[in-house]
């Protein structure tokens, strides 16, 4: 989807603390947390940026 911005979750452990805050608030329920792995469904995500605000450590970037 070329018109969509890209969303990047830094989930290799450099920033992400695997807290699940983004998972709980995503209105589309499209983020998954698997102990120390975060994935999100690119096709469902609307780039609403709510998860960006909810992340306590700034591990999610939309650009």
């Amino acid at each position, binding site marked *: 989807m070329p018109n969509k911005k890209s969303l990047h979750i830094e989930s290799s452990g450099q920033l992400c*603390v*695997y*807290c*699940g*805050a*983004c*998972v*709980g*608030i995503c*209105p589309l*329920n499209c983020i*998954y*947390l*698997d*102990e120390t792995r975060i994935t999100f469904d690119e096709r469902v995500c609307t780039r609403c940026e*709510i998860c*960006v*605000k*909810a*992340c*306590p*450590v*700034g591990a*999610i*970037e939309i650009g």
Partner: protein
Amino acid sequence: MEDRKTDVLVIGAGPAGSMTAKWAAKHGANVLMIEKRQEIGSPVRCGEGMSKEWLHDVGIRPGRWINVEVEGARIFAPNEKVFEINEKHAGNEVGYVVERDGFDKQLAIDAANAGVEVKLKTAAVAILKEHGRVVGAKVKEFGQTYEVRAPITVGADGFESQVGRWAGIPTNIATRDMDTCLQYRMTNVDSDLRYCDFYLGKCAPGGYVWIFPKAEGLANVGIGVQVSQVANPADARTYLDRWIDKHPGYAKGKKIDMVGGGVSISPPLKQTVGDGIMLVGDAARMIDPLTGGGIANGCIAGKICGTVAAEAVAAGDVSKEFLQKYEKGWRARIEEKLYRNWLAKEKLVTLSDETFDKVIDALQDVRLEKLSVHNILKAVRDKHPDVTREFEAFL
């Protein structure tokens, strides 16, 4: 792997899940509790403060998971004037600071000893539905996917809950109904073992900074910021670091642990059951919207949830109508307070630092044994009539 059957499938082995599982098993149900982590209770996502008067009621015995028994709470205004509440007047909001992983493990042990089967590294990945009713879940255990069929499925999967939404129960929360949280365990700090401390105002927009003492010189120092008041990514961290920098007793400390997380500060959900499905704990948004505490409510509701789940299985009726018994039961115990505290929170998040200062100032004149909402408001009216207007709704 082969598909399985059980009476009650509990998804998530936090306090709410373990309590639900234990009480369902005690009432005769076959219970399987699955947990996606490899270690129950770890990593900890909690400030570890809890009240204690409810523990006996739900059958939890004090154990080695208690770190500190505090005497009270101190509320700090933005100008750092302090108001002290002892336990009796805090409505028992404070009591213990605990080792949360030890606590969670104890509850899981209690559940296992009551006959519950526990599976680790086993995540629910989808809900099974037939004719509109939930009949179990698709799970992944050590990478192997199979189905667990159960007349009752319980979503006890915490703040990040997906089970409710998969089952079609609306549990979405608005940004103003969530706090984004960060906490450090710090050593070499000037915390006081007698108190849990709370700092209000713009140091933590829409939330507060907390200091919960773990041992001499050791404390959990954390912050919650209302998501709707977040201006920049990582604000929770920015505000917490700023608060620590400004407080020499903490700036000299050393961080030894970091915890993040989300806390719902929402009004109670309208619905927590459906045909064959029940939600409990953070998954049902049962966190107290004023204090952010969710352990007690999750355990209290868990006992009711497990009991009703077993009754439904025994009666051969797992319909939404039968499960209303749980819905009514947990509401009777905690809903009024959840709602009242949500209203209070909605007011508090709008107050300016000056108003906080004035309220805390007025509280100095209220004698502790007379601490009631009425007396607090009266004191505010007597001393700072200009801010009374803001509290008219409570009068």
